[in-house]
């Protein structure tokens, strides 16, 4: 990781309320702060417990304090815990150089569950992401998490994928260190395993 990093580096971590994206944005932010970066995280709050879209803007810089909102089209990386949410953020904040890493497990919005709106087929989402990004990875993080015994661990799998992708200047051990500070023993090992699965899952993939 010796190349020059874009500065500020703009990361969006997105998902649906309750998926735990705010937790991983905090852990990544704290790890970057320890590495000596300026970090600003803007979070959309409000109806987050009621199934709404939740996005964290995580911005890191060596020299300046970034603002809490990424300007339009200025996202460098979009980490999505839900595929339509990844596309939603890409449409707003993406540019031809944006990298996308997304979980492929859908969570249907109410309008889809009621039959009033359609959830796009995964291939359509992938096609859309491909057309609007520089590179993209697709992971079934929820499947990995369910196999580990807890669907909520999908966020840690995705954090592993992000760091494994090499697209942010953060080493695995630095994130693991944050996990060790955040979790007690009984939950720590499971979170570390989910994280490790994410790292290896993305390393096995080529981008699309």
């Amino acid at each position: 990781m010796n190349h020059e990093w874009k500065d500020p580096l703009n990361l969006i971590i997105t998902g649906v309320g309750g998926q735990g994206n705010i937790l991983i944005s905090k852990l990544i932010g704290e790890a970057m702060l320890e590495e000596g970066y300026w970090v600003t995280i803007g979070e959309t709050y409000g109806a987050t417990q009621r199934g709404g879209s939740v996005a964290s803007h995580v911005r890191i810089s060596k020299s300046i304090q970034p603002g809490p909102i990424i300007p339009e089209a200025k996202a460098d990386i979009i980490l999505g815990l839900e595929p339509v949410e990844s596309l939603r953020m890409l449409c707003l904040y993406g540019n031809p150089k944006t990298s996308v890493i997304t979980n492929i497990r859908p969570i249907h919005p109410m309008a889809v569950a009621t039959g009033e709106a359609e959830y796009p087929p995964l291939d359509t989402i992938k096609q859309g992401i491909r057309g609007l990004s520089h590179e993209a990875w697709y992971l079934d993080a929820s499947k990995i998490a369910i196999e580990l015994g807890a669907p909520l661990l999908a966020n840690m799998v995705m954090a592993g994928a992000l760091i494994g992708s090499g697209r942010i200047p953060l080493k695995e051990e630095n994130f693991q260190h944050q996990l060790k500070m955040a979790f007690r023993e009984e939950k720590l090992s499971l979170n570390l395993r989910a994280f490790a699965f994410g790292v290896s899952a993305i390393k096995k993939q080529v981008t699309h």
Partner: protein
Amino acid sequence: MPNIAVHAPKISQLLMGNEAIARGALEAGVGVATAYPGNPSSEIIETLANVAKERNLYVEWSINEKVALEVAAGAALANVRALCAMKQNGLNVALDFLANLNLTGVPSGLVLVICDDPSGISSTNEQDSRHVAKALNLPLLEPATSQEAKDMTRWAFELSEEIANVCILRSVTRISHARGKVVLGELPNVERNVHFDISRKPYASIGGKAPELHQTLHQNLTRIMEIYESSPFNGYTGPEDPELLIITCGSGWLYSLEAVRILSAESSVGILKLGTTWPLPRKLIEKYMLQTGKILVVEEVDAFLEGNLKELTADMKQGRTWTFYGKASGHIPSFGEMNPDIVINAVAQVLDLKYASRKPEYHQKSQEMAQNYVPPRGSQFCAGCPHRTTFWAIKNALIMDGRECVLTGDIGCYAMATGSTGFFQIRTVHAMGSGAGIASGLGKLHPFGFKQPVLTVCGDSTFFHAAIPALINGVHSQSQFILILLDNGGTAMTGFQPHPGNNMNAMGEPAPILDVESLCHGLGVKVIVTDPHDINGTTEKVLELLNNDGNPSVLISRRECALISAKREKPLYKVLVNPDRCIGESCGCDRFCTRVFRCPGLIWDREARKASIDEAVCSGCGVCAEICPHHAIFRESNG
């Protein structure tokens, strides 16, 4: 996760603005902190409550914002530094007290933190609280970063003591809820001399003293202005003679810096950032204004700074004129939340620069994708939410009653019942407790020929906050309405903070429960309790009260918030759909469970053309098994 009470000066932590405000209060030696919960302010008191024992604080979730400020003022009157936090709506509740407290002042530091919610992300309005500082002649500070949120809070206590009066710190959602680097300061060892001085003149403005005390307020402001002139929270970056001077405050500062960087306009645009926005530091502002002829004002929400700057220029005798750009000129919208793109576009427009965030083809493609393949994800009641069943029962009862009943409401998760998730039942939403007050008014219109029965809903926390006076009013005025108390066991919308109906206080200590039934009995009101998940029983109880003429009556619809229950116990039932019994669209129910009842645990399976259960979302309450007309949904006890 950061420990907010750590004794480690100079170390950096990644703190949310609200956590930084809490830390600033600790560094100032705060003793008492109070609030009524309300986003985006709630985390300040939550953070302080978590360290109350460790730092020897008294932290309280008060019954409403007025009482919260009174409790904090009580501490400050007895020489204990105190902080009171609220959202912009809460300020209105506290305003009557604040508009008198400013006249008498307080001997010890009292900081009022107001967190505004531009765009009303979690509010009913986007009111700009700063006008109150000007109206009441109180000093105002606006942090621009988490670091400033901490440092300004600490300083606000000193300013407060400098003039023996309240100091206001105004935050906004993007300051309160953003996380940024904060370098910690020292935590003091506080030695308190807690004493109310009864030898001095009373803290009171009666007896014709108001004008004299009002004059003192103006003298205080002159002193504050002098202090503000050299405040490190104000500063300029840019060339000596900028073509355009941005004057900004709060969240606008980082957006402005970014806009200038993105437009590479550093050589022609200067930024004067103000942290002290009332009273304005006149000399400092004049110095930078004299270096330019064009001024762009960047602030959230109203043109508060913009108007005050224009007021200042009217008094400047330099013979120079300026062109102001901002909300009045239309370069910045005069409503809604600020963001960096608004500033980029305003600067580009003023300086005639070309800017497009991306190429037109890309932009068009992204718009098409967003329109065609990104379904909206709106807010709704959660799976198993007792509000859904209460409103379903209300809907049924009101249809059966058939007299075009009017249901008023107020603020809480249940306000979503103006929409499809609550079957469009609520007709009015304004302030806390206002549904009950409006009902008390509607309930007196029968002599004018008004024939519609009146009902109102309010939550348990809202009942204590502001609905009780309206209910008392209704009792005494013999108004005819039904108050349906949606008792879900906590202040759910803002994160389950305890209220007087709970057995615990903010600091986690045991607290006596105020029994709502006894309270209503004491008012002489007929009270019935129902479990909303018993839909038929609840419907019948609403009908029973609708047939009752006379005074107000109360129906307590009691069931714990499904999010709280889920944290404690496993689901009651495993809920399943029998695919042989669910005959989908040929049933005649018109997809009742998913299209009408709309619990997010229920899914319409497009391919099978049948209902199904989303196991990851279903809370296992089992209610849908009772509402399915074809008995296709069934439940198995989880033991």
